[in-house]
């Protein structure tokens, strides 16, 4: 198996005589490390998903085949979990990108203090999720929380709601907190992408008579669209993974209204003490993430090919 690295422009030529073992030596520590701390646990989880194991006696595995998975598919509550995960993910990504795009466009044009504004807008992203959960619990408090007071000041006539305690309101509240925390990341990425927009192209569109929105659609959006697509992928995968915020604020409740896949996984493993079922839920979540990634790369390949050919 020849090392064909010399054909690529950026690769190093292999030494003339023997096979270059350097890359393998270099990669080995990390490979071993990840195998040990991620690969093996993952394999273990996969195995667990086919067993019935209790948290209290984790060494005793009773093999049950696909039973855990069948249980999941037949349970209504699991379908609700999937639905909530879908809603949570889609709304998070759409709102975060929307808000991030708006923020990026605002912060793109020059004005005094722009550098400071760009730095300050990243505050939510920098704050630790545990602290964020804590403060938002207080903000959403039904009786004393400032959120209700702010809404009242804006004309909300609904009275004092207990946001995290109501099954209808908990998910929106959690969504709001999540979007608050992640939109700075989106705006930073989009802002970077906006720098790549050619100002001459913008000027050409203006001379052609395009209004602001037309300039955006004809010049800006096509340029930043690949970055936004990749951003969506990352945000989607992270939303499927997000645990700390939701768990600390609602633990998945009330009545499972904020129960995403990861929360459900944790509940089944640590609350219901069924490690096998928890593992099965985890596997389902991982599969969804993999499918999304595959779709992204397929879509990416297709658009790249279309652009290149025509």
């Amino acid at each position, binding site marked *: 198996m020849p090392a064909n690295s010399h054909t690529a422009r950026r690769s190093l030529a292999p030494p003339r005589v023997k096979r270059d073992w350097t890359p393998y030596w270099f990669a080995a520590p990390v490979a071993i490390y*990840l195998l040990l701390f991620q690969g093996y646990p993952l394999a273990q989880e996969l195995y667990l998903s086919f067993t019935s194991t209790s948290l209290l006696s984790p060494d005793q595995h009773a093999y049950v085949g696909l039973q855990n998975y069948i249980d999941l598919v037949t349970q209504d509550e699991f379908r609700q979990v999937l639905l909530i995960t879908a809603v949570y993910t889609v709304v998070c990504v759409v709102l975060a990108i929307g808000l991030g795009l708006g923020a990026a466009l605002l912060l793109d044009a020059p004005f005094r203090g722009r550098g400071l504004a760009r730095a300050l*807008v990243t505050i939510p992203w920098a704050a630790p999720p545990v602290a964020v959960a804590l403060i938002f619990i207080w903000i959403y408090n039904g009786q004393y929380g400032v959120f209700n007071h702010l809404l009242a000041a804006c004309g909300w006539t609904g009275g004092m709601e207990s946001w995290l305690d109501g099954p209808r309101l908990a998910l929106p509240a959690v969504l709001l907190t999540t979007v608050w925390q992640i939109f700075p990341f989106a705006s930073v990425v989009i802002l970077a992408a906006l720098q790549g927009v050619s100002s001459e192209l913008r000027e050409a569109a203006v001379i052609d008579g395009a209004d602001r929105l037309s300039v955006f659609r004809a010049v800006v959006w096509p340029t930043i669209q690949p970055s936004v697509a990749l951003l969506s992928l990352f945000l989607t995968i992270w939303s499927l993974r997000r645990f700390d915020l939701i768990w600390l604020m609602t633990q998945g409740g009330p009545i499972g209204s904020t129960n995403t896949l990861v929360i459900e996984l944790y509940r089944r493993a640590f609350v219901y003490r069924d490690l096998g079922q928890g593992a099965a839920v985890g596997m389902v979540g991982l599969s969804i993430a993999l499918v999304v990634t595959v779709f992204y790369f397929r879509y990416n390949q297709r658009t790249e090919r279309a652009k290149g050919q025509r």
Partner: protein
Amino acid sequence: MSTLSWSHGLRVSLVLALLGVAAFPIYWMLVTSLTSSPDLFAAKPHLLPDLAQWPVYGHAFSTTAVAIWLKNSAIVAFGTAALSIALAIFPAYVLSRYRLPAVAVLGVALFVTQMLPEAMLVVPLYAIFGELGLLNSLGGLILANTAFTVPVITLILKGAVDGVPIDVEEAACIDGCSRLGIVLTVVLPLVAPSLAAAAVIAFFHGWNEYVFAQTLISDQGLQTASVGLAGFVGELSTPMHTVMAIGLMYTLPAVIFYLFVQRYVVSGMTAGSVKG
């Protein structure tokens, strides 16, 4: 292009509104920490901090273990940063410079590990740590965190190494340097900004991390701030202003530090993984 003055004024007010939304919860942490208990539960919320309440911070140190928590968090954060960088630089180099099939596999594996939730791996990890005797130790926590940051750090550093022209390395090769030497003495200094950005990202992961810190450590003296703070959720005996004071002490270092380095983090990241 022309900026009419009303459009500029509109932009400025929108930016201010945006910043207000971004900063408000943190500000609210400050206000809550500096509000007396009766005022906290009054009919109308007090929007300004009551500066006379500043002793609450000293009080927090004497009534809770926040000093220990913050110390532990700092240890874990620095350890995660250091270990992540040390581990990730080599695979980053390999991913950038080599085109072997095994390398592609490594790249894919790193990407896939980004999808794994900590909550899912915590159970087997607990078992493994138990066998390795790593439970209840900050070192163990660092090891666990690093496993999760290495993929991201590697991708960032790969992007940085991509930017180093190969001629520099070839010159060193001719001068008779070993590959290891080249990486350490030639490549490393040239990617220093991205290295710093990556270190910051790993640092924050270690500082913010909750699930592992909660599960893998039961010794109260080794609790990190994330766990300590989370312990206040639902608990009623500690007054809210004290809790928020602790929350702010946990949050401010992260926010302030990040504000200073965010420009470099952005360029380090967008140079590598995110740009299409």
